[in-house]
Each structure stands twice: as structure tokens, then as C-alpha cells.
């Protein structure tokens, strides 16, 4: 893959990819951008052997997911959501707080449940595609989705 081809793929995928990473990082857009940058650079380093242009998006999502897991292992978990939830309604009008309830709910899911939920409901990937991205079986993805839905149902119902 040439440099120009790679840049073209980046331009086509960066917005949904970054949106996915922001949700995966529960609203930490700076971390999401750092992971996105690192994922694209890792992709660029291995792009010489990459031939299947149609699968670029799922390939970069896989790299992004693995990069997110590596970051998570090295960083302390963010515990600021309890504080953020106490912010008043007027302040919640600020766009940064618009999705606070959703981030808080996502934060309580495990990384695999969160990833499966986001890839399935937000990005529209099939179970087979998600299993390739997460490198697990399709049954495992179904379990992640089921558990993720149950957790989200419980958490978001509390807030309603």
C-alpha cells in the first residue's frame, strides 16, 4: 500500500474510528485521539503487506482495540464519573457533559462488552466481523453482547 493510499483510507475512516474510540474511552477524547494516532501509525508500519483495501476499516479497528487494551493495562482506571454525575443540570448543557450518563454506563462495562456493544450498535459490524476484530469466537461475542445489553439496561434504567 502506498503512502497516498494509506492517507486516503485514513481520511475515509478517521471520523467514525475516533468516534468509536471516544466511546470506548468513555469520553476521554484526548486519550481517544492518542490511541487513534498510535493505531494509524502501527497500521502504517505494517501496511506494506496489507493488500485487502476493502478490509482496511476492520483492520484498523482491530489495531485500535488492541492499542486501547495496552493503554488500559498501563494506566490507572479513571474514577471521575461519580463526581461528574453530581454536576448540575445547567452545567450539563455544555456539550462536554451531554453524554455523561452514557459514558458512565459504558465505563461500568468490561472492555470486551463495551467494544462488542459499540461495534455492533454504533458501527454496525456483524458478529463475525466483531469476532475477527476482537480475536474471539462468535459465541464469545454473542455472550459479550448479551451481558453488555443486560448491564446497560440495568444502569440506564436507574438513571431514568
Amino acid at each position, binding site marked *: 500500500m502506498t*503512502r497516498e493510499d494509506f*492517507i486516503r483510507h*485514513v*481520511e475515509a475512516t*478517521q*471520523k467514525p474510528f*475516533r*468516534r468509536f474510540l*471516544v*466511546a470506548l474511552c468513555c*469520553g476521554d*477524547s484526548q486519550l481517544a*485521539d492518542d490511541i*487513534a*494516532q498510535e493505531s*494509524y*501509525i502501527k497500521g*502504517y*508500519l505494517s501496511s506494506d503487506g496489507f493488500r485487502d483495501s476493502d478490509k482496511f476499516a476492520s483492520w484498523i479497528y482491530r489495531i485500535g482495540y488492541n492499542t486501547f487494551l495496552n493503554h488500559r493495562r498501563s494506566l490507572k482506571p479513571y474514577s471521575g464519573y461519580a463526581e461528574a454525575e453530581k454536576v448540575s443540570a445547567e452545567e450539563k448543557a455544555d*456539550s*462536554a457533559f451531554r*453524554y455523561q450518563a*452514557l459514558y458512565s454506563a459504558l465505563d461500568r462495562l468490561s472492555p470486551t462488552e463495551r467494544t462488542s*456493544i*459499540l461495534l455492533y*450498535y*454504533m458501527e454496525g459490524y456483524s458478529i463475525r466481523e466483531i469476532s475477527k476484530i476482537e480475536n474471539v469466537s462468535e459465541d464469545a461475542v454473542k455472550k459479550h453482547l448479551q451481558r453488555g*445489553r443486560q448491564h*446497560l*439496561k440495568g444502569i*440506564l*434504567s436507574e438513571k431514568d
Partner: protein
Amino acid sequence: MEEDKIKEIFSKFEPPLSGESQFLNRLEENMRSVELVREHSARVRSMNRKAVLIGVAVGFICGFLFSLALPAIGESMMKLRQTVAAGSFLGFISHNYLPMIWAMIAAVAGFIALNAFELSLFLMERRERVER
């Protein structure tokens, strides 16, 4: 919770992102850094390959030239055999000189080859620093 509700939540999900051009510019800078490192690694590999070839060639030529001296060494050893006692140390050497000579040629040629490798690598790196 209905699946539709989850889909609805995510369909309306549009978090604020940093500017696209800002993100892409930053990525281009990172890609350029990666390319610089790759170019440097390729140059270092090329220099190492050339230095190895020079070392091997110099070592081969030295070994060949030293081995041309073998007939003369053989004649000297024949003369030495005639003058010294068979059981003495010199007598032992005069009868078993070939393996020792080959070992010496290999050691000297290898030492010269190594020095040729180091010297050629040093000169190539210095030339590259000057050119940059």
C-alpha cells in the same frame, strides 16, 4: 432494554472531536518521523552489508596471498627436518607445520578482515555525517 433503544442512543451519539485537519496534520508529522527512522535503518543496513563484503574480500585476498607463501615455507621446513633431531620440539614442528600454518593464516586473515570491516564502516559513517 429494547435493542432499538440502544441503537437510538448510539445513532444520536456525536461527541465533539478535535479538528479533522489538526488530527491529520499530527498524523502526517508522526508518519514523517516513522519514515525518517525507516530511511535511517535502511541506510545503516546497507552500510553494514557493504562493510561485511569489504571485510570478506580483504580477508579472502589476505588468505590467498599468505597461502602463496606455503611452498617457500614447505622448503624451509624440509631443510629444518634435516638439521634437527626427530624427537625435539623443532622436529615436531617441522613434521606438523601444515595445520599450524593454516591456523595462523586463518587467524591473521580473519583479524585483517575484521579490521577492514570496522574501518570501512567508520569511513562510511563519517562520509554520511559530512554529507548530511
